[in-house]
């Protein structure tokens, strides 16, 4: 038990040490150091929202979604379109522009009302999209939903590019309203946004934790472990899977809303498979499928790892010199050096494979006991709940 807790703590400690150490070394002032860390934590919080959404789908219910970026994109665009004011130029064309951020008069609350309404709209639209995709695909083999979600991600990106009047095509949307923006000076806004992102994350975390500990959550896990047995005990498998898929997509939509308000501008190319889908899968696998804390730890560790790998790039020549590896380095072709950032992509892929092979439960792993009422004493005798990664052979 102690060892189980030690590994995630160690991973978090190493990442924290790396991030703090390197940024402290690189920053020229305390202010720069703190602002770098603020942006880092904000990004982790946003990624953690997506990882939590994926955990509801994959971790709890065993549904796999390879098109997370579709819901991310739908959420980001929806919230942007409802909070922005209508276009005033004929060169910037988009639908909507409900102006919820500034058009509500006394209810504006510095744009906070608009932000909340935007996030809710993002959740609703993402949920509807998920519902429509799931009707043909969710009842069939699991792989079909994965293909359908890849498809919907690709189609949405195309629609955003081709239908120029919809979301302004490849030029994208700029000036997305940011809540509470007028309270502080622009350089200090990141601290406000950190608070907003963390509050959203905490609300979603608490809500999912409660849902997972409810009878509803246990039915989801039961479906994941043994669909037939759950159906035999009278549960409507399709309805539960549908609920989990839609709920997960809604959370991803909210994540998209939080992302777009943080960025202030989005273009169709923002929504790549890599950052929208692959890295989020890596986060959940590393953290531990089936555990909400795991999803957050995974987002922290993977994004931290990604950031550290990026931060040490400029130091590589010095290190190579110190280790007298310089001669090897100069033998490599010049253009290869420009591509070293892709080593990070490679490691993200390897991370997924290695976790599946060596530590299928991830860093944190799934809790065995999820009911508030089940007796503590049988915990030791209870058979280990299998995480999906080690799931049984389906025959």
């Amino acid at each position, binding site marked *: 038990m102690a060892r189980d807790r030690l590994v995630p703590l160690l991973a978090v400690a190493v990442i924290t040490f790396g991030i703090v150490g390197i940024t402290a070394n690189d920053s020229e002032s305390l202010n720069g150091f703190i602002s770098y860390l603020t942006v880092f934590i904000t990004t982790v919080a946003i990624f953690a929202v997506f990882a939590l959404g994926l955990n509801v789908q994959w971790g709890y219910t065993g549904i796999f979604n390879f098109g997370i970026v579709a819901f991310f994109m739908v959420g980001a665009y929806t919230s942007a379109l409802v909070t922005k004011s209508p276009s005033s130029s004929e060169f910037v064309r988009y639908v909507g522009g409900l102006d919820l951020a500034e058009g509500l008069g006394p209810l504006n609350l510095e744009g906070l009302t608009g932000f909340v309404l935007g996030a809710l709209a993002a959740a609703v639209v993402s949920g509807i999209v998920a519902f429509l995709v799931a009707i043909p695909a969710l009842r*069939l083999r699991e792989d079909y939903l994965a293909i359908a979600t890849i*498809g919907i991600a690709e189609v949405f990106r195309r629609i955003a590019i081709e239908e120029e009047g919809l979301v302004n095509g490849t030029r994208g949307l700029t000036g997305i309203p940011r809540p509470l923006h007028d309270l502080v000076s622009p350089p200090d806004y990141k601290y406000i946004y950190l608070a907003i992102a963390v509050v959203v994350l905490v609300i979603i975390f608490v809500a999912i934790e409660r849902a997972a500990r409810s009878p509803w959550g246990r039915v989801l896990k039961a479906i994941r472990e043994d669909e037939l047995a759950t159906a035999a005990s009278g549960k409507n498998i399709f309805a539960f899977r549908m609920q989990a898929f839609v709920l997960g997509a809604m959370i991803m939509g909210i994540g998209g809303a939080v992302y777009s308000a943080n960025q202030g501008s989005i273009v169709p190319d923002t929504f790549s498979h890599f950052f929208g889908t692959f890295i989020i899968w890596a986060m959940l696998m590393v953290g531990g499928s089936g555990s909400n804390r795991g999803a957050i730890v995974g987002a922290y560790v993977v994004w931290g790892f990604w950031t550290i790998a990026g931060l040490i790039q400029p130091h590589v020549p010095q290190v190579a010199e110190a280790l007298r590896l310089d001669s090897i380095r100069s033998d490599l072709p010049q253009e290869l050096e420009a591509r070293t950032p892709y080593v990070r992509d490679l490691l993200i892929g*390897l991370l997924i494979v290695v976790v599946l092979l060596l530590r299928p439960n991830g860093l944190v792993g799934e809790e065995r006991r999820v009911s508030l009422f089940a007796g503590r004493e049988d915990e030791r005798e209870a058979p280990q709940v299998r995480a999906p990664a080690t799931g049984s052979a389906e025959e």
Partner: protein
Amino acid sequence: MVRSLTRTAALIGRARREYAGQVEQVGTVGLWLLIGLLLVVGVVYARQYLVTGIIVGSIIALGALGITLIYGILKFGHFAHGDMMMFGAYVALGAFVGGGSIGPLSFGWGMILAIFVSMTALGAGSIAIDRLVYRPLRQRGSSAVVLAIASLGVAIVLRAVMLLWWGPDQQLYVSGIHPAKDFPFDIKLKPDQIFIVATAFLLMTLVYLLLFRTKMGKAMRAMSDNADLARVTGIDTEQVVMWTWIIGGALAAVAGILLGIQSNMKPELGFTLLLPLFAGAVLGGLGSPQGAFVGAMIVGISQEVFVGIDLPFPPFGVPGYKPAVAFGILILILLVRPRGLFGKT
């Protein structure tokens, strides 16, 4: 709202179960009629696009054939297949040394050699990946979804290796302009495109012969039908798996190279390719080799013909909507006949 959604979902589910038989019968007839309509419209209004569709379709078919074989034998969706295709294209780019040109083609024997090098490399590479990743998971009794996620990891790794080694920009085998030649019925074709179709059909014939005329092919089909039964009759299932990877990998390599000849290659393209590949394989019926061929052809032809017919509403006339056409086919087949045109129940 959740409750009403649930109720709707359950209602749709019940309706689908009750009318499953009728939906499938009507749907199947409707599907074949649609396919016929597509071909007629293509022949009459968009002949050039129909021919391009056949070229693209034969490339997709090689990939879809691999996906369907891997699915039949190993029972999981291989999501690294698109990236494997791109990888094959790049390996051939690395092995391609030029070497003049054969007749009117834009490349020479150097390309033929590069194709063989890439086929060998991908066949061997697929076995290596299976030994390192999929076999340990298989032996542990992991479910199909876990294997599929492992293949996503493999896809990311392959793509990163391509980005590292060959860079993110698109590349060509032979640059320069290769004029198309005129053929009867107002069709213009490049000699390279005839090479593409000929190579694809030759390989598909070879796979057909292997599956239906050799002992290994028989073992593969047996394992695809029922793996346990195949094992108890003494079939060496691990060897069947090995051959599946060799064939799947080699076909993916050629498919990628042909795609590189037809248009260009780019590491990013790999994951996007999954949509037409799977749409073709699912349309034909996952696990059915003949189905993969027919399905891929229909996907390829629809993608091009829809773009060729200029109607004032999407997806017609907009090249960017090719993936949307493949997606539409996928959703349609999942709704009316999820086992595909040639799949077993």
